[in-house]
């Protein structure tokens, strides 16, 4: 039976929905093994999931962006003879898998939204204007990163997998930059919002330059809808909201059921991140704003009047 090896940079007590989706996808490709930088005693409970056979770790914790993660991956590939190596689409996983592909002399396909049982990979390219399928030769391993929200997660709690610690340890030592290497000077955790994660949310409320420094009305709307908050680059560049909220070519890609765009003109780079949303609602003062070309429902109007009225109406309906 073929083997699918899933790489998670790190594991918390519970799997994220992107991690659950990836395990679900991997199970359609073969026997599933996990490899992670997190030590076994902390990793094992999270991946106690039906179908996961083994969790491979290093002999100590390995944190991104340590290239020892590539050694760990390579060793796990040798152990499992995996024919598919998958990871969530994050910068550090892309780096690790890209380097692994060089070592395995095979191809890498990033940003997959689907992989069929023949290992044919589907992805969305050119800012969402094309869908492609691609493959690597049958005798080579497939190395791919997968976008969140690509498959329906269906994991069932199961027995704890076997933990195998491989003889690979962290390599980013303090002072390494003085002797030819790389070192981490400081790590600051990113703020975790109380709201649903942007890439996983069913509803996204996004604001642009038009919010003029005041995300307050959009926050209230997001509260009513249980939505995540997104933004255009103009809004993140202005410092009104964290860069993590940026939707678009150089931010995150979202495909929620509902995307509400307020005070955003709809530049191609913004569209690249949201035009696969199921329903798009746009509010903009300018009737010629390009966002109206892709909106299912558009309002030419002032967001500071329209959005508070939406909030009021939603509250009225709730009773």
């Amino acid at each position, binding site marked *: 039976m073929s083997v699918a090896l899933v790489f998670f*940079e790190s594991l918390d007590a519970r799997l994220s929905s992107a991690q659950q989706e990836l395990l679900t996808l991997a199970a359609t490709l073969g026997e599933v093994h996990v490899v992670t930088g997190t030590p076994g005693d902390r990793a094992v409970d999270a991946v106690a999931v039906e179908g996961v056979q083994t969790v491979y770790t290093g002999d100590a914790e390995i944190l991104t*962006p340590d290239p020892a993660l*590539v050694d760990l991956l390579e060793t796990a590939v040798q152990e499992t003879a995996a024919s598919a190596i998958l990871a*969530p689409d*994050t*910068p550090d996983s*892309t780096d*690790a898998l*890209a*380097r692994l*592909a060089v070592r395995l002399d*095979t*191809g*890498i396909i*990033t940003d997959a939204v689907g992989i069929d049982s023949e290992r044919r990979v589907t992805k969305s*390219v*050119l*800012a*969402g204007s*094309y869908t*492609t*399928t*691609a*493959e*690597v*030769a049958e005798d080579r391993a497939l190395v791919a990163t997968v976008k969140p929200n690509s498959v329906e997660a269906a994991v069932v709690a199961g027995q704890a997998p076997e933990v195998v610690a491989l003889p690979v340890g962290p390599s980013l030592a303090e002072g390494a*930059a003085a002797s*030819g*290497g*790389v*070192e*981490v*000077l400081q*790590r600051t*955790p*990113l703020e975790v919002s109380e709201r649903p994660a942007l890439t996983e949310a069913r*509803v996204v409320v996004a604001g642009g330059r038009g919010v003029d420094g005041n995300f307050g009305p959009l926050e209230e709307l997001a509260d009513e*809808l249980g939505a995540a908050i997104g933004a255009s680059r103009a809004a993140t560049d202005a410092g009104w909201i964290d*860069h*993590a909220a940026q939707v678009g*070519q*150089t931010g995150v890609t979202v495909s929620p059921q*509902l995307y509400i765009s307020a005070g955003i003109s709809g530049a*191609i780079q913004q569209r690249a991140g949201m035009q696969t949303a199921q*329903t*798009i*609602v746009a*509010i903009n003062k300018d009737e010629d704003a390009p966002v109206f070309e*892709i909106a299912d429902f*558009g*309002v*030419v*109007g002032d967001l500071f*009047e*329209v959005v*508070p*009225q*939406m909030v*009021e109406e*939603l509250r009225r309906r709730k009773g």
Partner: protein
Amino acid sequence: MPESAAGTPLHIITLVKWVPDAQLERRFTAERRIDRSEGILGELDEYPLEAALQIKEAASRDVRVSALTIGPAGAATAAKKALQIGADDAFHLSDDALTGADVVATSAALAAAIEHVLADGDAEGEHLVITGMASEDGESGAVPPQLAERLGLNLVTQATAVALEEDRLVVTRASATEQQRLAAALPAVVSVTDQANEPRYPNFKAIMAAKKKPMTSWSLADVGLDASAVASKATVLTAEARPPRTAGEIITDEGDAGVKIVEFLAKERVL
């Protein structure tokens, strides 16, 4: 590496790509390749150029900035634009065998080209490769890590700030869960995002000066490779245009648009 790098010359190679203009309609050809008959210097490649020029301007040692591109004949215009923006010289690798190159093929060709650019310069000096966060058309971001792997160089990706401090680079970046500040010894490969700086525009003087700057054209054989060394490993089987989204109902607010949106959402069952 010498005890102190302060007097050592530094050679920065920035990678630039000629890509179809994202503001225009981009398409695939019948051979399932991105149509590259027209193009511009990718906007994401202006940030690494700017980063290189800022390092050069802040440094108290000799810094040379080279621009390197791979692409068909038209790609020379991207290299020329890089010269206008401020690179000192440019290199253009062009070969029919590179048509439709995937990530691994591209990184193999770039690695060989980088070694040849370095051989062209001061062997005693230090080296730094700066790239954009991803190409504007391929968008994988996987080429910089593959270059570091192939060339055995230190790697720092997705930098939002880069500074050269004496003999090491200090870089800020974001991982999936944290903000990181890293220090890396040279030689290194660094990719920078669009948050790293504000790219400059070339002025008339710079455009005139660029005409005198050297540009070297290479074929694969010139950098010591044959076609088999740049064979793609991923094959595109299908490329389908997505039906474009069409505009729905657009209304002008007459004091009740907030209520109307909620009615629309209720009707669409997305509440």
